[in-house]
C-alpha cells in the first residue's frame, strides 16, 4: 500500500515502520527520528483537519504535536501501535487549539475600521512639531556657516557618511573634514547656547 493510500486506521505496514523508527529514536538514533517526524507531518495534518481545525491553523497543531511527541517519547510503549498513540496526542492538541481559538474569538473582534477611528497613542504631535522646528532651526543655522564647515556638517553629521566616504565625495582630506566638522559644531553650540 502506498503512502498516498494511507489512512488513519489502516496501514499496518506504515504503523510497523513507524514503530521501528520510534524504537530507534528511543535508543537515540537521530536519522530514524528525523525520518519519523517528517513522515508524521501529513498524518497529523489529516487528524487536525478531521477535528475541524481551520486550514490556517493546522500547521500550529502540527508543530505542537511534534513538540508533544518529543516530550512524551519515553511514555510510548513499543509494544503498542504508534499511529494510535500519535493520533491521541494530535487530537488533543487540535481540541486545545479549537478551545483557545473559541476563547479568543469570544473576547476579540476583527475591526480594521477601529484603526481609522482612534488616534495612534504612540504618535505625539507636539514632539513631531518640535522635531520639525528643531530641524528647521539647525538647517537655517547651518546655512550661515562657512561653506567648508557646512559641507563637513552635511556630509558627516546629517547624511551620516564615514570619513572615507565623505573625503571621496568632497575631495577634501579626512583631517580637513574633521577640523571643519569640529568648528561647525562649535559654532552651532555657541549659537544655540546663546539663544537658549
Amino acid at each position: 500500500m502506498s503512502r498516498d493510500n494511507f489512512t488513519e486506521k489502516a496501514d499496518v505496514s506504515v504503523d510497523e515502520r513507524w514503530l521501528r523508527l520510534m524504537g530507534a529514536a528511543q535508543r537515540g538514533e537521530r536519522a530514524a527520528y528525523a525520518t519519523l517526524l517528517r513522515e508524521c507531518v501529513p498524518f497529523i495534518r489529516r487528524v487536525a483537519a478531521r477535528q475541524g481545525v481551520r486550514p490556517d491553523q493546522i500547521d500550529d497543531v502540527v508543530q505542537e504535536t511534534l513538540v508533544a511527541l518529543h516530550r512524551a517519547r519515553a511514555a510510548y510503549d513499543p509494544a503498542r501501535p504508534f499511529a494510535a498513540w500519535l493520533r491521541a496526542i494530535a487530537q488533543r492538541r487540535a481540541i486545545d487549539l479549537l478551545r483557545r481559538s473559541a476563547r479568543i474569538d469570544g473576547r476579540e473582534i476583527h475591526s480594521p475600521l477601529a484603526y481609522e477611528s482612534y488616534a495612534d497613542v504612540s504618535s505625539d504631535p507636539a514632539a513631531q512639531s518640535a522635531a520639525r522646528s528643531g530641524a528647521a532651526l539647525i538647517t537655517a543655522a547651518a546655512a550661515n556657516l562657512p561653506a567648508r564647515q557646512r559641507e563637513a556638517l552635511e556630509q558627516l553629521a546629517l547624511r551620516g557618511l564615514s570619513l572615507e566616504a565623505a573625503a571621496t565625495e568632497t575631495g577634501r582630506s579626512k583631517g580637513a573634514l574633521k577640523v571643519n566638522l569640529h568648528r561647525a559644531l562649535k559654532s552651532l553650540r555657541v549659537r544655540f547656547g546663546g539663544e537658549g
Partner: protein
Amino acid sequence: MSDLDARRTSHEELIERLVADLAPTRPLWSPLLRAALWLSAATLVGVGVALLSDLGAVSRRLTAVPDMWLAFLGSVLTAGLATVAAFEIALPDRKSAWALLPVPPLLLWIFASGAGCLRTWLLPETHIAPLEEAKDCLMFIVGFSAPLSALLIFMLRRAHPLRPNLLGVVAGLAVAATTNVLLVLRHPFDAAATDLLVHLVAVLIVVGLNMLAAKKVFAENFELSPRRF
C-alpha cells in the same frame, strides 16, 4: 517563497531542533508495574503505622459489624484500582474510561461508611467522634496524603497525560483511599455521621490538591510556545 514553502521550512527547522535535542530514553515501565511500586511504598508506610497500632483492637472493630469491614475492603480496593487507573490514564493513548475502574469499590466504600451512620441510632453505646477527634482525623488524612501524593506525581512525571484534571482526580482518589486505609489502623472509634463528613471533606481536599499539583506539574505539556523541549 510561497506560503507552502515557508510552512515546510518552518516544520523542517522545528524537526531539526527536535532531532538535535534527541537523547536516548528508556521507555516507561508498564503502568501496572509502576502502580504496584507505588502501592508497595504505601504498604510500607502502612506497615509502619500498623507497628504503632493495636492490631487486635483494629481486628475486633472491623469484624464487629459487616459495614466496617465492607468499608475497609471498599477503601482498599479503591486505593488499588484508582492507582492502576491513574498510571493508565497518564499515558496519551489510554482511554478516559480507565477513570471508571475505581468507581464500584468507591460506591461500596461510600455506602458501607454511610451505613455506619445508621448504627449510631441502632447501637446507642457507639462512640461518636467529637470535633477535636474529627479534626485529628482530617489532619491525619491530609498529613499522610502529602508525601504519598508527592511520590505519586513524581512517578507520573515522565508520562504525558492529556487530561491533567482527570488524572488529578483519580490520583487524589488513590491517595485519599490509601490514607483512609492507614487511618483505619489508628482509628479510635467507629464510623459515624461526623466521621463520614470529615472523611468526605478530607477526600475532597486531597483530590483538590492533587488536581492542582497535576495541573502545575503537567502545565508544560500545554504551553503554547515551549521554551524548552
